[in-house]
């Protein structure tokens, strides 16, 4: 893979990452926040795979697989929490979930 291709992948990754960060910080809906987190992780995955292909090793792909596996677990836990919050409060607005205020 040449440098031009790599740049394009890195650009895609950066755009996705920025979108994800925006979603996490700005969205009120917890589900959307979770999805944004997925975007961040997948941006990282694209970077890993791109660099792995660039260097001609499979290390990047292996790492990406690990990230996907961990992300699946994380989403499972995250959705469970969101579900419980919804059952208790009939809402998933993150601004209302502030019981931990010091």
């Amino acid at each position: 893979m040449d440098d031009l291709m790599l740049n394009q992948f890195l650009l895609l990754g950066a755009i996705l990452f920025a979108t994800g960060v925006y979603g996490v910080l700005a969205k009120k809906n917890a589900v959307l926040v979770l999805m944004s987190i997925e975007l961040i992780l997948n941006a990282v995955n694209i970077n890993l795979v791109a660099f792995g292909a660039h260097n001609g090793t499979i290390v990047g792909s292996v790492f990406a697989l690990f990230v996907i596996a961990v992300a699946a677990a994380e989403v499972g836990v995250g959705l469970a929490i969101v579900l419980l919050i919804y059952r208790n409060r009939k809402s998933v607005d993150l601004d209302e979930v502030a019981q931990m205020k010091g």
Partner: protein
Amino acid sequence: MLAAETVTAGFFLEHAYVVPLIMAASFALTLGIGKRLGRHASWIGIAAIGVCFLFAIGANVQWADYVQDSEHAAEAEHDDESHAEDEGEAGTPDSEEEGAHTEGVGTTSGEDDEHALGAASDEIGPSVDGETASARAPPAPAVEEGEGGGHAEYEVVPVTKTWTWWSNGGVTFEAGMLLDGMTVMMLFVVTLISLLVHVFSTDYVAGDRRYTHYFAFLSLFSAAMLGFVMAQNIVQLITLWELVGVCSFALIGHWWEDKPNSDAALKAFLTNRVGDIGLLVGMIVLFFAAGQTFDIIEINTLANEGAISHTALVVASVALIAAVMSKSGQFILHTWLPDAMAGPTPVSALIHAATMVVAGIFMVARMYGVFWNGLVIGGSSVNLLAVVGGLTVLGGAGLAFVQSDIKKVLAYSTVSQLGYMVMALGVGAWTAALFHLFTHAFFKAGLFLGAGSVSHAVHSFDMKKDMGGMKKFMPKTFWTFLICTGALIGIFPLAGFWSKDEILAGAAQLGGSGSYTAFLIVGSIGALMTAAYMTRCIYLTFFGEFRGGHADTPDEEHATVSHGEEDHPVDEDHAADALDHAGHGDHHGEPHESGPRILVPLYILAGLAVVAGFVNVPDSGVLSWVPEGLALQFEHLFEPKGGYFPSLTEAGPAGVTFAHPTFDLGIAIGSTVVALVGIGLSYAWYFKGLGPHGITGRNRLARAGYRFLENKYYFDHLYTGVIAAGFKGPIARAVNWFNQKGLDGVVDGVGKGAVGGGRFVYDQIDQRFVDGVVNGSGFAAEGGGQFFRQMQTGKVQQYAAILFVASVIFAGVFIIVI
């Protein structure tokens, strides 16, 4: 001198170490799941010991092959040697020709011979390392002619196996096995007796409240003893020696609810502790004297070579004799043994025949190189070992006369017989001692189990009060008991005759010009007394009128382990209390014969008491017609041959060679006559009522003598009344005075000083300084908390924002710095 061909040890020999492990596993298993199995818990132990017994038989058979092979290998090599000798130079260091021509039978200590011994010990060194069982042919047959037999002298290298246990500071502690003739013999004896005791016990302690506990400890006891006899080094020896002691403690005190029983267990344990100090001291001396090695073979080899200073050997021997005194019930530490009768009778049989007390004898036999050279056994001096043994022979036999408890008669008889063994070891008749151990195991176990059978019927051990006329009720028990008694007394041709005769012959013939004759006399008097007290015992138990059957109040405490079937006959229902006099009065009108699980072991033991003596039939003197293949098999198979045992042909550092006594018709007839006189006297006194009965009432001297015996030579008074009370009384008072006047002043002073110092510290340091720091840190934490709580908004997205911002900052720093 090259090792010619490899003599391989068989499967059972190489893997004999599993035998104690099997028993240990049985212990764990019985303890673990035994409760759930109830009465069937005993099957675990019986199966385990049965397997071990078969294993022991296999080991013995293969050992016989192994000895045979070693002999043949040595002979083959011997032939080669002779050839080489013809062609080569005369007078090579290990020349056998030279040995034969110039030395005859062992009177040299030349350089050449030392070289030969050195070579032998080098051979032993490497053979004990690594995880491989090494059993090699000896490097060289040392010298050709044995003492009387015309066999070539050869070496039987013990089968050894070692594993590193742990190592510390350059000293490696190993665990391993050392299998030679005496170990193999002991394997057979211990497993057989233990098996019979297990079977006997299923009937004898049936219904006991700690049935599983009992069988678990029988297993552990066997495991400890089996491990002990194959101990490869002295650390292992000491460890298992102690384990044997612990198990005997547990079993003697099996019925600990009764104070006397737990006292007896404690007494056994504590008396043994006294001797154990000797064991530790002796073994530590040996460890350092032998250049920091625990290896038993190496220590013995070094002792035989004279590489250990004589002083060290003397110190070690004397210390170890203390251990033998306590473990094997020798005077003056024998007092625990008769008290140990408080345990269940099968346990007594096990302790007295195969395990506990035999451990002391075995230890001496195992470390014989040390004793042989340390005490100059075989030289012309009376040594401590023989003296202790001789005293014990007479002391024990004397006490057996005044006992009314059948088990105590047998206990003192054991003390006396162990005296014979120690005496035999002391005069150099090693094989005779071990042979007596072998035969004694069978007939003494038979006697104890017989006594158990009788007591099982009458629920008592008191011969004078509760027995008498038992012959009529229990004919089978009577006959087995009689045969075993005959063997103990030494009636031709029962087992005891051969072994006791060999000991007496040893006392008469060994040690140069009759220097041990005193012990011949002691042994003969002992034989007379043995015959007399055993006749008395038989009379009181089996003849005369039945004196038992009087209804005592049932002793509920032990008798009532309920079985839910009250009408069931005795066999199921003997609650196991030894002291339980007629506890089940209603179904015990008349004693009756015991069941098969008690009788079969008795038959087997009585049979062995008849035939066991023939394994070492001598072939000298009037018995010279005995074919060579049958004669002296015990000696041939089980006596160690090698550098770690006193040599038959070469004089050790003490200048004496090991020798075997030969059969002497005079001594054999003499000992038989003496035994018959003993029986006759006792018969006349008890059966016929002849002699000055009631003399103890009329004659002050006789009464004093009786008192003296009855109080067991006042040893118990000496120990508890004088020594222990001495510590409790005056010394305790002195310590108390010192405590009150001396120590208390110091303590008070220290206390007041401490109070003053404490007050100062409290006021100044604690209140002002420490508290200030503590309070200050508390306030600081509170202030910090107040500030930081502002940041905890509880809003997730704020946290995430902080996270991202921080990440960006750190990433920037990272990029700039790198």
